[in-house]
């Protein structure tokens, strides 16, 4: 009962209400019910955060307690997680100290990590060209070169070629990928709403 029937019924009910509200926005009661269900889902997700956070602390506390390799790194995770959580919980995510936490740690740290991807992406491209020497790899490399060189204002012909590559063949390939992904998402979602697939009971 708790393992299959009720969870599936709950998934079908919430799914049909949200879908109905989205497909028939003119019908006010359904629209209101959709908003309520989505708000409830957000509250439940907030409880899921508690689970995730406690699990993170449990895993790292275990490593600190047993003095596993890298225990000090785990201690830093615990201290920063508890400190940031307490700060944001007390004054909210838009409070002055929360903003300072963002400015001092999160924004520069995430920015620097993303900046590092410039190096890792270049290394990955070089490695790919070494391993994949087929037509696909060559096509990838030539297009990449045209796109990067096309940014220079001194090479107008390459700029025109880069614009055409972006607007025609790349658009076609990306549209094919996006349509394929969207069809996959729609089918999986439909299976959950109809109760044919029950990932919540696994």
């Amino acid at each position: 009962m708790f393992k299959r029937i009720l969870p599936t019924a709950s998934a079908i009910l919430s799914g049909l209400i949200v879908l109905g509200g989205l497909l028939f926005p003119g019908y006010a009661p359904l629209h209101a019910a959709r908003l309520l269900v989505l708000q409830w889902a957000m509250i439940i997700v907030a409880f899921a955060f508690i689970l995730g956070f406690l699990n993170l602390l449990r895993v790292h506390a275990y490593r600190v307690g047993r003095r596993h390799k890298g225990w000090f790194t785990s201690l830093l995770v615990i201290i920063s997680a508890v400190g940031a959580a307490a700060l944001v919980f007390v004054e909210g995510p838009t409070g002055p100290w929360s903003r300072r936490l963002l400015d001092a740690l999160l924004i520069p740290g995430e920015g620097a990590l993303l900046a590092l991807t410039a190096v890792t992406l270049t290394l990955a491209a070089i490695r790919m060209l070494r391993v994949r020497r087929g037509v696909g790899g060559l096509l990838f490399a030539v297009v990449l070169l045209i796109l990067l060189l096309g940014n220079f204002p001194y090479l107008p012909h390459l700029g025109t070629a880069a614009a055409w590559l972006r607007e025609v063949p790349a658009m076609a390939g990306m549209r094919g990928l996006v349509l394929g992904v969207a069809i996959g998402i729609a089918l999986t979602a439909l299976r959950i709403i109809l109760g044919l697939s029950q990932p919540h009971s696994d």
Partner: protein
Amino acid sequence: MSAMGIGVEMIVAIIAAVITLAIFSYLLSDNLLYRWALALLVGGGTGFAFGAAMHYLLTWLEEGWQQTSVVGQVVYGIPVLLGLLLLFKSVPRLSPLGNISMGFVLGAGAALALAGALLGTLLPQVLAMSLPPDPTTTALINAAIVIAGTLAALFVFSPMPAYDAVEERSRPLILWLRRLGRGFIAVALAVAFAGALTTALTLMVERLWSLAAFFSKLIPLLGG
């Protein structure tokens, strides 16, 4: 500014610079400084998200507490009950109780995803393949390439039985359509790669620029 000449904003700038330098130290090798910076980032990010979620939850509970009508209390009480059931997921013997809440969230999420895929992706993308009102020859050729490329790229991922080499040779049209599709996908991935690389380089310049700005402020403070 405090008596020592270093205010809160300067401390924020110092921490930001240290974190940036520690992460950039990965370019030399995978070192302890990089891992500590990463640990602070993971902990800080998780704590921030958790704190924000709890702040939102507390606001909701406060609003629920002020409800006097039965309907109002039910509206505020049901998600809290479902949320508490979800917490049983951490106890292996009682974890099936949390499945109801999981089902609720997954159902709502699946409906959003379905509507988003249909109304936000499939329909607009198909409509975008229509011809412009007054097409030139070049526009017609480009539109034909886009349509052919889209279909060929879709064909690469079509749920068909895997052909062995002999069977594929006996169906040359399928073979060539798939090859053509892979070519279009390679071009699309190259464009995405170039975009990601350009963004990462822009961020690298921004971080280096902020480091330079920080040191230009710090040196006069140190009396240099």
